[in-house]
């Protein structure tokens, strides 16, 4: 899909900011502080491309996904979908826009309305956007169920009659219903067990090829990300710290945080233990983020300049941008990156994906 990256981007995010106001007071609400959940995030996604957004819990990756879909209103910045600004659309225009951008949620047990049959759930996007009549919507629902590997007669059932993996397939079918161009996948497999994860990830890939979908794939599981993504963006405390194509990022991570993330993949080989970069402490609060580089409190390579001056995203190579003052001088932990691949569990899971992919014919 590297040729797709050259065409016009489906999504352009520029300087996206989301601050949550912390308020106090009963009648007259006073803002006593801001949680800086997302700070100056910019990236773009090409048609047919998968951009993975990775980071620890609470780093703002899910918030970014919701801002793009305007399930939340951004504090600042611009989100252009196929060249059209959506950050300032009014309510009706936004509703019309929604059919082109969809979302798949993390928790398949919470993302389907328990009071609606699967058929009603799948017809909902079409009904809302007044596409077709009842009969054609029902037909489309049955078709969607087949596309995601369920049976057409499942349309009459209620969500609680399905397993987690099946429900996630229904969630995917709902996202596909109105033929969107972009799907935000918000940790779509992290609530599923590993054998089901592989099936769902491969389903997502098949659908991408079949319908030319673009994905923003939000995840914290680096094995899944390595399998599905074309490019990877790493977030830390609301900011992008590194963005590169998958191969570059996994082989030559430049930002100390990316290096630490890759090193944190468990390695059962005791010989490699000494090489490991361990992150100390917890993620600082986005309510009071550290000065300068937000990562300096946990960075093994931090120097005086890091706490004073905020690093900008700089181009390290074409398409590879890093927000670190010293990335040129930090030793490249190539051994660690390879160690990540050599790790048995990680490799076993990659193998599981491949196996499931060959076992299940596309579609």
């Amino acid at each position, binding site marked *: 899909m590297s040729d797709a990256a050259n065409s016009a981007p489906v999504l352009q995010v520029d300087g996206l900011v989301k601050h949550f106001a912390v308020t106090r007071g009963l009648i007259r609400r006073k803002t006593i502080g801001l949680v800086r959940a997302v700070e100056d995030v910019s990236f773009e996604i090409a048609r047919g491309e998968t951009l993975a957004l990775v980071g620890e819990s609470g780093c703002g990756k899910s918030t970014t996904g919701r801002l793009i879909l305007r399930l939340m209103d951004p504090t600042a910045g611009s989100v252009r979908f196929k060249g059209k600004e959506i950050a300032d659309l009014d309510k009706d225009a936004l509703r019309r826009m*929604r059919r082109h951008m969809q*979302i798949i949620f993390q928790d398949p047990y919470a*993302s*389907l309305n328990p*009071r609606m049959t699967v058929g009603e759930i799948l017809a909902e*996007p079409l009904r809302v956007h007044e596409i077709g009549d009842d009969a054609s919507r029902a037909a489309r629902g049955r078709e969607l169920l087949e596309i995601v590997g369920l049976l057409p007669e499942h349309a009459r059932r209620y969500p609680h009659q399905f*397993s987690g*993996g099946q429900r996630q397939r229904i969630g995917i079918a709902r996202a596909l219903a109105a033929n969107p161009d972009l799907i935000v996948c918000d940790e779509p497999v992290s609530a599923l067990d590993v054998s*089901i994860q592989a099936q769902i990830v491969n389903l997502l890939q098949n659908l991408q090829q079949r319908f030319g979908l673009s994905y923003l794939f939000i995840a914290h599981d680096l094995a899944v990300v390595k399998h599905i993504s074309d490019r990877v963006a790493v977030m830390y405390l609301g900011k992008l710290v590194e963005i590169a194509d998958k191969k570059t990022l996994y082989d030559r991570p430049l930002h100390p945080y990316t290096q630490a993330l890759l090193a944190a993949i468990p390695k059962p080989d005791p010989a490699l233990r000494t090489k490991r970069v361990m992150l100390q402490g917890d993620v600082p609060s986005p309510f009071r983020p550290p000065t300068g580089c937000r990562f300096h409190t946990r960075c093994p390579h931090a120097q005086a300049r890091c706490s004073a001056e905020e690093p900008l995203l700089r181009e390290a190579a074409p398409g590879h941008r890093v927000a670190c003052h010293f990335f040129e001088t930090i030793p490249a932990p190539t051994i660690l990156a390879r160690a990540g691949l050599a790790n048995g569990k990680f490799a076993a899971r990659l193998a599981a994906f491949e196996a499931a992919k060959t076992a299940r014919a596309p579609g």
Partner: protein
Amino acid sequence: MSAEALDTGFARESESGVFARAGVLRRLARDRVAALAGLVLSAIVFAALFAPWIAPYDPYFTDLTKVMQSPDARHWFGTDNTGRDIFSRVLYGTRNTLMLGLVGVIVGGFIGGLLGILAAYYRRLDGWIMRLVDVMLAFPAILIGLAVAAIFGAGLTAVVIALVVATVPDVARVARGAAIGVMGQEFMEAGRAVGVSDTELIWRYLTLNCISTIFVFLTLRFGQIILIGAALGFLGMGAQPPTAELGMMAAQGRDFLFMAPHIATIPSCAIFVIVLAANLLGDAFRDVLDPRLQT
């Protein structure tokens, strides 16, 4: 869930979702106390509905030659101080008392449920709605009844208003709690992402998913509402003589408690039976509908 379950396994085949009313009734019938309470309550409702056909005497016909007679074969519950047949009056009184409770619960439940759900959906209204509800919560129903009776005159209307005001705040709190729980579920966000309008989100996504909680709360509340209604009647703020209403009948019989104790005790017993049956049934409904208690 294993990989095999993906192709074959279904959580439960037989029951179709939360609409499984038949399943609910079956489980309810298995609980003997609930079945008995349900039977008693249906009998009472039936008797109240068909009071004009069942009552052996005119409840307002006074016969001064037969005052304060003890229960016997001709007057099952005896007669009161003006010689009216107490059995007939209890039937008509039950009618009024049940009607008060029902109207209180339905109107109060509707207003309270709506307030609670709107507060949960539109968080900027939350503070205002809940403060309003707190203010309502601060007034005892008896006091509201007194105030309404003082303004518009005593009568069934005054009692209904008091009962509604007594029901609204509690229902609003319960509905808000349930709705906030539903709001946190991803399917609400999914609906929004699909483009579903606010009205539809509130009704088809939010309300339908917290209605069983509200319903259970109202069935539990029904007994208490009847009791408050009877208390207001007893204090003379409700139905005015000669209208039959259980609370008021108990109040009138109080003067003759030593000479003819049945005049006060029989309507009181009727209240007791209605409230007990309603509470037991409400408890059983809660047990059956509460998903945490289901196996």
